[in-house]
């Protein structure tokens, strides 16, 4: 952030002393929440710097920093109604769908088609989340996430067991870990709980297929789907058998994450962006935690794989600004920046990058190991935030505590979720 300040000073100085020289430069605005403690902040900083120096004299990007994705979403939706979107917009699938529906973002497909090399660099399924039936691409993905389960090998050793490969082994491991004095699985009733829910549904017969295509919002059925019923009951069992922490309903990510980072909990489901935290970047962890943690698949030999968890859209209306924004997206998905992303925030991109051995060695072993393990999985599926509509997710968070505590049965729980969409 300090760098942004200097940027501002530099821009102001340029405006004062060298205005004529800048007359040709197109300035674009990126509204971003990759600020402050956001894990993507270091990469964002690098992107801006790199883009501005690469296109010096031609394009220039400035940021509008909005802390917190909630405020960001509120603002962007209001800006879209006011027809005043910033040039570059970043956000998750939900926000990007809003942008699509508003009809105020640029279709990116023509630009990709005009540059076959750029188009070919993406994985075949990279655009699945953002392409309309008419083949219009309303947002560009920048990530491909392999979301597994982190586990503390020291805990498993102390309990004398191996990391589970089936759900039966998982519950047996829970008992052993509890007896050894650990919280087996850290959850909070929101994100990490829903990741486990996805794992438990996705590894059932037919579960991965259902997760990949559950139907159109409004018509999604849950009660009749065996994989959903079985997976949901597993999730409840995780709570009733004491596999998770006592404060498992706070809905605050920090609840579960802290337990795991303090080596009080043995497992947590989360994406690779947690690796820097596990290694002690920007947070305090238990001593030597990084050396004890391994990154594994879901029991049942499955893995959540999501391309384009979030994306970039272009809100410009002016041709020159669109051009500058497209150049930004190209720069964003260049090999150089994809490598930066992997290095700085432990995340792979949606493009095929051939890292050199040297570049590879510099990456986190946890990140590399989960990608390697993904080669041999039986089930690949997205997480619930991608598969299910927002209303259903909200209702899950709302109702999960009373279902877990046994105040309603599985059929009722799933009916409530169905009604919410």
């Amino acid at each position, binding site marked *: 952030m300090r760098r942004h300040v200097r940027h501002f000073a530099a821009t102001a100085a340029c405006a004062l002393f060298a205005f004529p020289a800048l007359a040709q430069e197109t300035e674009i605005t990126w509204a971003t929440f990759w600020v402050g403690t956001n894990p993507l902040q270091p990469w964002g900083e690098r992107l801006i710097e790199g883009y501005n120096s690469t296109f010096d004299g031609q394009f220039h990007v400035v940021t509008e920093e909005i802390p917190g994705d909630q405020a960001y979403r509120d603002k962007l939706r209001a800006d879209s109604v006011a027809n005043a979107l910033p040039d570059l917009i970043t956000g998750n699938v939900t926000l990007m769908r809003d942008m699509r529906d508003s009809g105020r973002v640029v279709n990116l497909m023509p630009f990709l088609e005009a540059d076959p090399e750029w188009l070919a660099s993406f994985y075949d399924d990279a655009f699945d989340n953002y392409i309309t039936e008419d083949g219009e691409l309303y947002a560009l993905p920048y990530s491909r996430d392999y979301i597994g389960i982190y586990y503390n090998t020291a805990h498993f050793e102390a309990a004398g067991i191996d990391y589970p490969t089936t759900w039966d082994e998982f519950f047996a491991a829970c008992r052993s870990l509890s007896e050894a004095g650990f919280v087996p699985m850290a959850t909070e009733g929101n994100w990490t709980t829903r990741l486990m829910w996805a794992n438990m549904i996705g590894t059932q017969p037919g579960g991965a297929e259902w997760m990949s295509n559950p139907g159109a919002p409004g018509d999604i059925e849950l009660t009749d789907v065996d994989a959903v019923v079985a997976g949901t009951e597993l999730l409840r069992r995780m709570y009733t058998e004491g596999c998770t922490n006592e404060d498992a309903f706070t809905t605050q990510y920090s609840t579960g994450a802290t337990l795991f980072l303090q080596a009080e909990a043995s497992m947590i489901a989360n994406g690779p962006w947690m690796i820097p935290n596990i290694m002690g970047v920007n947070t305090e962890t238990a001593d030597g935690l990084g050396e004890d943690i391994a990154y594994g698949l879901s029991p049942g030999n499955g893995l959540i794989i999501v391309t384009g968890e979030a994306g970039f859209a272009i809100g410009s209306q002016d041709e020159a600004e669109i051009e500058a924004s497209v150049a930004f997206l190209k720069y964003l998905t260049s090999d150089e920046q994809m490598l930066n992303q992997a290095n700085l925030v432990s995340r792979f991109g949606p493009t095929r990058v051939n890292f050199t051995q040297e570049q590879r060695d510099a990456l986190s072993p946890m990140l590399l190991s989960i990608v390697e393990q993904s080669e041999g999985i039986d089930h690949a599926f997205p997480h619930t935030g991608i598969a299910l509509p927002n209303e259903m997710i*909200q209702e899950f968070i*709302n109702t999960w505590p009373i279902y877990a505590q046994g105040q309603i049965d599985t059929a009722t729980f799933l009916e409530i979720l169905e009604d919410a969409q």
Partner: protein
Amino acid sequence: MQRHFGFSIFLSLLPALLLFATFLALPFFTILVTSFFEWNARGLTFNGGANYLELWDSRSFTSAIRNTAIWVGAAVLLHVPLAVLVAIILSRRLRGWKVFRTLFFLPNIVSYSALAIVFLGFYNARYGALNMVLADIGLEHLQTDWLFNFNTALYALIATWIFHVGLYMIIIMAEISSIPEDLYEAATIDGASEIDQDLKITLPLLRNVIGTCMILTVTQSLIYFEGIFLTTSGGPANATLNLSMATYRAFENFDWGEANAIGMHILTLGVVAIIVIRRLFRIGEHDFD
């Protein structure tokens, strides 16, 4: 006498009316009109009263009405009376009263995003201070996950603000400070005790301002959601969902027509409450006419 003041009165009201017309009239009409529309990212589509029918048919709306009623009840029956009590005691200028006054206002100075983290920690099921204290005094059987147990969540949340009376306290104290002193002097000479004076002089003269605080607390309760949003988000199973939190949920889901239909309920309930309180407390009548 007001005849030749007519134009001055108009001028005096003008800035406020202009501010209202610019910034508050449009939101009001937006709520009113769009509550009859389906409004999402695609735009606006008229759907008659479908938003209202859907609401009246939903379980969560019933919970929201019930919880809002309990919330408002606590504000009216406990929050404001406690503020009056503290204001009267401090107005007696006990030793250290200025320190207490500043102290009691402190929670109003801190944004709720900070207080939310404090109370999430206080009530936490694993390490929370409340459960620890209960264990220390031998009341282990009362331990629970206060904010996420369906039966305790709403009351646990109400307890987070019910004693934070600072705002109403200073409003009432300012009013007490403008009560003419000779009233008390006369009473003291007649031998009335302090409590007699509070009950017979102070309280009746506070009628207008207590009524005003009642209006404020009811309307603030109706639109309050930040503290709920940052702790329980209305859960578990809508146990802490109030009307305003329900509005916010619909807003976040980009179901803005429905959000504004709930908003219309808040508006209507608010206006009715204001009228009732004004009647009950005879606000607007002068004390010294």
